[in-house]
């Protein structure tokens, strides 16, 4: 028998019991909660007369609905307000830690978890949110769940799960200067397809991945779900350990040394067997732009919108036709000729301070093009905002003509007031370009923070490396 993969190790360490058919009861260490997917779970718990199994495993934050301006006032949209107030009430009734809207630690759930040291290597992490995969960057098993499962974890601290298959995605060699974690994951999705990872847990490895900071690794794991995989993960190394230690909720004192020793085991064994292995050449990855309505509809910025008539598979050809129509682009059109109306730098994919630094480096001393109606930067958390302001990044953005907002999900999914109008086109650092994702009829092009800033200052998509030269 071969060795174990990182996923095997994480899985085995959390199995409480296993049925004959392989269904396991899996123990959950950390449960993150936000306002959209929890109210029905809290209600179900109450109706059944149950209480949370381990309240301390839970941490809650409102993020999807919160406004990014006027934070001292109450939320104007009454429906959003009720949802946030419901979370506040549920948390205070049950004694659950919550970073409320006025708290500097408030932010997007997947940004604040790691920032607070709530995510440590070796943990199982769940949240009623598909981008929970983000936390796999810490050598943790992290995946999104539905609301019934949220209730199940609240009540039992466990989930009923079947083990996924193992996939290794290896990005060899370093990437070129100016190519970011976002470009890496978009290129992976372009190769794998949006369903390529379905049924798998993906481990990302290779030099290009190891070279990434924790911020970059989170960007990569964040979008594992866009390749169909519920979880993505990266082995623990010095970068991981250095990031975690010293954070408010992370292990400290006597236990620290033992913890670090245990964390160092969180790697796939050299002889581990994967069900599927995919390799990419890091050096060949270029800055990416999505042209269509699915993250797999992605190409290097120097590419052209595909021609459906050249696609032999009829279902795919039809998909391309629909996407072209929705996106208002033309077959064969160069991506560099596409001109966004709005720029959104934010979301749990790309709203950490490193992302803002990369965007600011491009925007510094330049002006947002006159054809761009709105360019906005939405930091991932109050602490990211604070840090960015301490470094003067806010001023660089403001001088260039960007709006500098309060933290939250914002235009990633447009549940608050930030949204695209029908037919408006956006260069966005978020993770989904589905129809209507950023507002009904809105058109989303996914890019890295540097590429979004480059599109802002030039008025069209452009290889950011040209601006850096």
């Amino acid at each position, binding site marked *: 028998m071969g060795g174990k993969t990182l996923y095997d190790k994480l899985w085995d360490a959390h199995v*409480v019991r296993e049925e004959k*058919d392989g*269904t396991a*009861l899996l*123990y959950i*260490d950390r449960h993150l909660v936000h306002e*959209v*997917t929890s*109210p*029905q779970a809290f*209600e179900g718990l109450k109706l*059944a007369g*149950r209480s949370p199994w*381990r309240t*301390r495993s839970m941490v809650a934050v409102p993020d*999807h609905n919160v406004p990014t301006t006027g934070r001292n006032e109450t939320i104007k*949209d009454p*429906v959003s307000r*009720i949802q946030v107030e*419901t979370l506040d009430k549920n948390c205070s009734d049950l004694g659950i830690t919550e970073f409320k809207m006025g708290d500097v630690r408030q932010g997007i759930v997947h940004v604040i978890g790691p920032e607070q040291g709530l995510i*440590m290597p*070796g*943990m199982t992490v769940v949240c*009623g*949110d*598909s981008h*929970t995969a983000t936390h796999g960057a810490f050598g943790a098993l992290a995946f*999104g*769940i*539905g*609301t*019934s*499962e949220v209730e*199940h974890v609240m*009540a*039992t601290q*466990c989930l*009923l799960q079947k083990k996924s298959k193992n996939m290794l995605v290896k990005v060899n060699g370093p990437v070129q200067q100016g190519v970011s974690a976002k470009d890496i994951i978009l290129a992976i999705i372009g190769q794998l397809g*949006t*369903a390529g990872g*379905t*049924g798998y847990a993906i481990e990302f490895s290779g030099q290009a991945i190891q070279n990434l900071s924790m911020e970059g690794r989170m960007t990569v794991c964040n979008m594992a779900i866009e390749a*169909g995989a*519920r979880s993505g993960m990266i082995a623990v190394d010095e970068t991981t350990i250095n990031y975690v230690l010293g954070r408010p909720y992370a*292990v400290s004192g006597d*236990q620290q040394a033992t*913890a670090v020793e*245990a964390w160092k085991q969180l790697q796939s064994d050299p002889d581990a067997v994967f069900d599927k292995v995919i390799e990419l050449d890091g050096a060949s990855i270029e800055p990416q732009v999505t042209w269509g309505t*699915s993250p797999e509809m992605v190409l290097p910025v120097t590419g052209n919108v595909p021609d459906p008539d050249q696609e032999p598979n009829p*279902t795919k050809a039809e*998909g391309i036709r629909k996407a072209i129509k929705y996106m208002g682009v033309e077959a064969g059109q160069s991506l560099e000729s596409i001109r966004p109306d709005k720029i959104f730098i934010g979301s749990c994919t790309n709203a950490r301070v490193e992302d803002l630094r990369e965007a600011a480096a491009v925007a510094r001393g330049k002006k947002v093009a006159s054809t761009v109606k709105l360019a906005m930067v939405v930091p991932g958390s109050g602490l990211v905002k604070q840090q960015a302001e301490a470094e003067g990044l806010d001023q660089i953005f403001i001088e260039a003509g960007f709006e500098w907002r309060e933290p939250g999900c914002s235009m990633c*999914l*447009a*549940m608050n007031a930030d949204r695209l109008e*029908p037919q408006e086109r956006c260069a966005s650092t978020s993770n989904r370009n*589905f*129809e*209507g*994702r950023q507002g*009904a009829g809105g058109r989303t092009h996914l890019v890295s923070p540097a590429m979004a800033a480059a599109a802002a200052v030039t008025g069209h998509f452009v290889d950011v490396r040209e601006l850096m030269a």
Partner: protein
Amino acid sequence: MEKFTVLDGLVVPLDRANVDTDAIIPKQYLKSIKRAGFGPNLFDDWRYLDPGEPGMDNSTRRVNEDFVLNQVAYQGAEVLLARENFGCGSSREHAVWALEDYGIRSVIAPSFADIFFNNCFKNGVLPIILADEAVDRLFSEVSGHNGYSLHIDLDAQNIKTPSGETFTFEVDPFRKHCLLNGLDDIALTLQHAADIKLYEQKRQSEAPWLFS
């Protein structure tokens, strides 16, 4: 949870791949703190020509007559026939709640996104995976046949078409058991509370930092 045993249901064909949860139930409806009432806004962006907001009177909106769900022949459908990677995107269970609230009890597709697939079983909706060719066949039969219904038998794990043809499907035994009996899996898990406590004690002694 409602039991699922046998269903004789009218089929509505949705001929698109990668139907995502944003399409199934657009995000503005996720602001509800209830589980019910999502049906009228199922596939909202495709069903209506004007943008929808929560609380709107849908009867005053412009209906997209071209969309299958709005066609007379498919009113009252309980089976949704779909293409690959159905339910991709977010984890929102609201997508299943919307299907269920609309009256869909089973979705047939060549493949599903994992989280959506899981969520179906928690709500008495049966997702069925059939091979591409079988799905192709069903699509072509539905379009040429008014009032096309399927007979779905979960216990026997098969589907019968009006012409008497039978397709079998796989389903996880535990999930099947829960669905057939309408069982609440929290209660089932809590029968193992002693095991969970035992695990916790052992784990806490090995890795106490996980419990602080």
